[in-house]
């Protein structure tokens, strides 16, 4: 599935990457797939959050058809 990237991740890898994640989809599995495919992002991914359909998720499980949008959210620094 397509995963949106921002900030330092987007700078390194572009706005979006394709990851293979098996169902049920969880935040941990997305982060693991990211690190497996792009090991250089491990440090940032460890501190990142996952958003599914523009909402932060932690332990929730999703089927692929429930997912419109996945994003990796590096530590925020607005304000």
């Amino acid at each position, binding site marked *: 599935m397509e995963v*949106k990237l*921002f900030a330092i991740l*987007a700078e390194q890898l572009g706005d979006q990457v394709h990851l293979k994640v098996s169902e049920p989809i969880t935040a941990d599995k997305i982060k693991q797939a990211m690190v497996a495919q792009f090991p250089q992002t491990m440090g940032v991914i460890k501190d990142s959050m996952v*958003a599914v359909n*523009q909402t932060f998720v932690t332990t929730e499980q999703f089927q692929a058809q429930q997912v419109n949008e996945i994003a990796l959210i590096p530590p*925020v*620094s*607005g*304000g």
Partner: protein
Amino acid sequence: MHYIAISKEPLDVNALYEKVKDPQFGGIVVFSGTVRQWTGDVETQEIEYTAYESMAIKELTKLAVNIEQKGANVVIVHRIGRLKLADEAVFVGVAAAHRAEAFTWCESLIDELKQHVPIWKKEFDTDQIRWGGPA
């Protein structure tokens, strides 16, 4: 009422102040965060803000509605793009009947924004570029 925006244009502080103001509510507290030149020994020249815009608006709206329902007007606007020294990065305005509440609510909004809303700064300092600013 509440008004939320992510803006590519410089923030018009006066227009946003007028937006939050309301004869119903006598106390208005505004926080604005501007690009600061010095952070300890680090000198900043420019900051670039980026956002996951649709989600940032969703998160900010949740925060604003939560306060609005307690009895307040809430205006939150965050700038994105390249900012120069002293440019406003963020405006948070709360109008409420009592000033103590307006202070508490305004401060909690900017605290929450800084902790959870998907917006990032890339700081161009004289010595190096820093994501998120000086540690």
